[in-house]
């Protein structure tokens, strides 16, 4: 009985940690997909870039994870802003197919660059000693790393939520999300708001990429590998809804972890079946507001 409870607790921690990583990655994607209406298949690539920057810093010099993290986030934000200003601009009006193809091209370029710079092996950012331990309370054992992921993600999510809810910029972004035309009419520079949001989304993805390397190891095809789970989070959560993404990421992370543990014969199949069923039940997303 105690053993079962301990397993469930451990699985819950794993599932929530995985879900939080997915959530951090999905913030930028749900904005680009749901609000800017860009089918952005390259979003996961920004998580990969962040991860690789941190990996390069941590493994080459004597730089700790906590110094590398902000550098990786800043670097990825800069790159994201540059790309948004250039190639993403091109496809704002081309329609969905053009966006899919352009971002697919970006994914290919990311993959090729990652392979040239880091080779095709799996990589993970090295952890400080205290993070690789397990905390034990009787039969219950919790990985410090996963608890750390959860704490950092919750902090980041809270900061995002506070900015969105209480600052001037947050109010402008919410207005632009709800009604871009009206927002423009009352003098909000909607494209600029979206550009900033895009860069911030890239930064959050990078943070998730850096933190999650032990769960999702870095490899050249990272951007495609984790694209599908990410898209599932966003579409189940409802496009453009941060709160929806949050719940969807948690639920999918937990279902996936439990599914893999208890029905190993089905592997990752459980989660896809669940998502297709959820999307058929509510095509606009399970957690989406009914009005939109």
């Amino acid at each position, binding site marked *: 009985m105690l053993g079962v409870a301990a397993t469930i607790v451990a699985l819950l921690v794993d599932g929530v940690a995985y879900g939080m990583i997915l959530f951090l990655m999905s913030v930028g994607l749900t904005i680009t997909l749901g609000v800017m209406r860009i*089918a952005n298949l390259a979003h996961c690539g920004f998580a990969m870039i962040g991860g690789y920057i941190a990996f390069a810093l941590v493994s080459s010099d004597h730089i700790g994870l906590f110094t590398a993290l902000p550098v990786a986030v800043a670097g990825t934000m800069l790159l994201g802003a540059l790309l948004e200003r250039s190639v993403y601009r091109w496809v704002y009006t081309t329609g969905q197919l*053009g966006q899919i193809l352009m971002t*697919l091209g970006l994914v290919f370029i990311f993959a*090729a660059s990652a392979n040239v710079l880091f080779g095709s092996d799996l990589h993970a950012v090295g952890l400080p000693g205290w993070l690789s331990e397990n905390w034990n309370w009787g039969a219950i054992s919790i990985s410090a790393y996963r608890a750390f992921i959860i704490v950092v993600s919750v902090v980041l999510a809270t900061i995002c939520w506070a900015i969105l809810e209480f600052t001037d910029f947050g109010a402008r972004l919410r207005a632009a999300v709800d009604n871009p035309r009206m927002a423009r009419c009352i003098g909000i520079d909607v494209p600029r708001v979206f550009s900033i949001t895009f860069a911030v989304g890239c930064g959050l993805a990078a943070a998730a990429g850096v933190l999650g390397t032990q769960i999702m190891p870095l490899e050249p095809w990272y951007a495609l590998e984790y694209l599908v789970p990410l898209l*599932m989070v966003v579409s189940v959560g409802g496009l453009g809804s941060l709160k929806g993404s949050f719940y969807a990421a948690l639920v999918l992370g937990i279902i996936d972890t439990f599914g893999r543990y208890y029905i190993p014969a*089905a*592997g*990752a199949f459980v989660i*896809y079946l669940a998502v297709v069923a959820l*999307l058929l039940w509510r095509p606009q997303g399970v957690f989406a507001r009914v009005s939109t």
Partner: protein
Amino acid sequence: MSERADPKAVEIARSGFARHGLSLLDLLPFLCALLVYVFGGRYLALSIQVMVQIIFALSLDLALGYGGIDSLGHVAFFGMGAYAAGLFAMHVSSQPLLGLCVAALAGALTGLITGPLVLRTRGLTLVMLTLAVATMIQQLANAAGMKPITGGADGLFGFEIAPLFGVFSFDLYDHTAYWYALGAFAFVFIICKVVVNSPFGLTIRGIRENPVRMRMLGVNVTHRLVTLYCISGALAGIAGGVQAQVTKLVGLDSLAFLLSGNALVMLILGGTGSLYGAIIGATIFVVLSDRAAAIDPFNWLFAIGAVLILAVRFAPQGVVGLITDAWQRQRGRRRL
């Protein structure tokens, strides 16, 4: 046609071809295929790959270029066809044509089952759902519980394909396989032509341009789209079937997203919605990637990525679009 042919019969035959949009120009790809066979004996295996990918790209063009179904999961049909052909050869019969029919049926069935679910939606949700369905099928084939059937990561191998028509055996020299793939390509091309130029094809194009209006005209939009999805699925299944029968190997990579992505690249390279774009794009893509893969696979990926981004910006209609533009400019100049 001889001179003594009945003019009326000639007229009927001509109008029959014209009705399906077939012209003498359509013989060009097959003429090229013949030249390759005669002069390029070393490249038969590569040419078979080209034809398989052409069939796959044609099936995607039908759904995407004509029906406006932005599918990121077309590989599901390809893989189902490949696995169906492989399993059929393994357990039921090694007759190639029968196996190909089974592959087409598997593709069509996949379309029939997933189509009504997926095609209710539009836009981004549709893209996500096609991707999710394809990934789901790949995970199903990969799942440990399915290993006795699909072979898991090892895939299916060790099945034999009987000689075509009981005479021409699929040997190491690929001669039979070449004509077999060419035959499949010709068949699929004609089917595409017929479908595209039929009243059904016009309806489909109408739906692509304006689904709401077509519904108002009394067209059952979802029904037509599902039909198109099934046809497209069957053709993609044929591509997968030919691939499986010719290589005598089916792996999980025949269900991988990369194939869907590649087919999209071929279409954008060639141009969507013209069928010729699929042929040109697939040929360019497969030949170039074979050459480049021999030299440096990942730098080739870099080039493909750059070409994609630039193509979206500067040549959204693909090679066919560039040719048509140049042709029209030329004609305009002549008139002046």
